[in-house]
């Protein structure tokens, strides 16, 4: 059993009097609610009407969430006044206002004519495909029935349309309720107006922006978004050729002698063919490129080879100076060979008998690094990248130190291991 709890609540109710006109305003009513769980918003409205203001206007009929008459915006969210209990609303102040997107007749009463006009446009009636003497049997466990299922529970309260911002921005948009109804009939294999209905639904189903507002507020827990997505998918599968089906081609007549192509026709055909050919060639080239790149790496490891930088005794440099030596060698990369001619930065420390060789490619984007003798720094061609003499980054975008080559001295020659 629900917890019994009551207390004071403030209700701000939207008021608009057509006799006075104007923009409307909110009236505030303080009520002592005996039991939050047993008091609906409709009860509250009755009490306001009896105890405070008899002129308050609102619409209701069944009081059991079946007719949809009492749809309104309760605390910013659409709902049925007869279904929403005060306990559902946690704020001390509760606002009640009429549905959005409908002309206001008086206070909380709106004119539902725009809603039903759009409902009619969606052709909400069933028209059997063929005359049948026996009633059709749709088994409850069929896929067709499950697809329609709860979407048939719509009570046309207008809450979903009120919550949908696209219904406001696109005046011709049929809205979630009408499209939901449309979907229940489109999914029915017995529907005789399928093509006409689909054509109408396709006109507006793409206005849905997947906001899920209609699904969130629906008092019957239907998802019109799901119905609209169903129509989207149906439009993809059945949309092509719909125009031809709706206006069938006239009876074929005897063909006249073929006329020569006009320049416009031939140009269009040429452009079409060229576009297709280019697309095919580009696609094939892309596939080939990707395949070659992937396969070459898989089949053959990159070749590493020792590259000579020349006789060691000829490499002379002042202390603290870095030499730039060009290495010439051939390299196999994938399926082709290439000749390399690239600078290698060599730092020589004769006292310690130590040689360090740096790759002259920047570790950021691969641009060239050179040695600045005055600054005693490696400078990078891109965006002010700077390295210390030991190769570490001083400033700029390069994320890591300069790459070092493995070195060896053999037969008086200095070699670096190049990949």
């Amino acid at each position, binding site marked *: 059993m629900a917890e019994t709890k009551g207390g004071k609540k403030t209700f701000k109710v939207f008021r608009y009097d057509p006799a006075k006109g104007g923009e409307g305003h909110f009236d505030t009513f303080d009520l002592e609610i005996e039991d939050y769980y047993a008091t609906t918003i409709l009860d509250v409205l009755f009490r306001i009407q009896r105890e405070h203001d008899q002129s308050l206007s609102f619409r209701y009929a069944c009081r059991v969430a079946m007719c949809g008459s009492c749809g309104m915006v309760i605390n*910013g*969210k659409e709902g049925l006044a007869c279904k929403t209990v005060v306990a559902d609303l946690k704020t001390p102040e509760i606002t009640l206002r009429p549905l959005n997107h409908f*002309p206001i007749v008086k206070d909380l009463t709106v004119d539902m004519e725009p809603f039903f006009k759009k409902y009619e446009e969606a052709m909400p009636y069933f028209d059997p495909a063929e005359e049948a003497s026996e009633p059709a049997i749709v088994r409850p466990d069929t896929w067709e029935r499950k697809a329609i299922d709860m979407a048939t529970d719509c009570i046309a309260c207008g809450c979903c349309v009120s919550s949908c911002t696209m219904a406001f921005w696109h005046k011709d948009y049929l809205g979630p309720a009408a499209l939901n109804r449309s979907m229940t009939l489109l999914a029915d294999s017995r529907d005789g107006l399928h093509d006409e209905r689909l054509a109408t639904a396709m006109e507006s189903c793409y206005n849905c922006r997947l906001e899920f507002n209609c699904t969130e507020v629906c008092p019957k827990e239907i998802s019109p978004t799901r119905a609209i*997505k169903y129509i989207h998918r149906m439009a993809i599968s059945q949309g092509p050729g719909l125009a031809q089906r709706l206006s069938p081609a006239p009876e074929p007549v005897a063909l006249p002698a073929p006329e020569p192509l006009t320049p416009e026709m031939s140009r269009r055909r040429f452009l079409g063919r060229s576009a297709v050919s280019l697309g095919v060639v580009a696609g094939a080239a892309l596939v080939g490129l990707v395949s070659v790149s992937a396969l070459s790496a898989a089949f053959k490891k990159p070749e590493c080879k020792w590259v000579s930088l020349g006789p060691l005794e000829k490499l002379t440099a002042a202390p603290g100076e870095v030499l730039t030596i060009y290495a010439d060698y051939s390299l196999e990369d994938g399926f082709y060979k290439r000749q390399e001619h690239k600078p290698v930065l060599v730092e020589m420390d004769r006292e310690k008998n130590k040689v360090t060789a740096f790759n002259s490619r920047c570790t950021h984007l691969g641009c060239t690094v050179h040695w600045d003798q005055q600054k005693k720094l490696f400078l990078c061609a891109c965006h002010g990248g700077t390295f210390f003499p030991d190769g570490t980054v001083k400033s700029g975008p390069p994320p890591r130190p300069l790459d070092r080559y493995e070195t060896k001295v053999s037969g008086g020659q200095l070699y670096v291991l190049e990949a």
Partner: protein
Amino acid sequence: MTIANKLNYRQPLHRGVLDPNRIRATQAGMWAWLWQRISALAILVFLVLHLTLTYRPLLQFCLLFTVTFHAVLGLRVILIDFGLVHVRYQKLLLAGLGLLGAVMLAIVWFGIY
């Protein structure tokens, strides 16, 4: 004469008009739609800044973040559009893809950059 002509109808209210509780009642799907639009504009701004003010790590992170954010929301739309994920899981999808986006962002930023 119809009723509409007899009565002085007030123009319809719009979402948010005169309603302090409207933002509180805005749900996940609506925020997702709204933030995807905002992130699209943010991408434009950060892309222009990235091209004019090169190699500012903070700017690069902002661009990467907005692109990831936009992609996550776009993936959600694609998955629901093609019926690959049931609309029932739209909120779960937001959380799941958001998490995936955060992981990808971390991998790109800390692992690759």
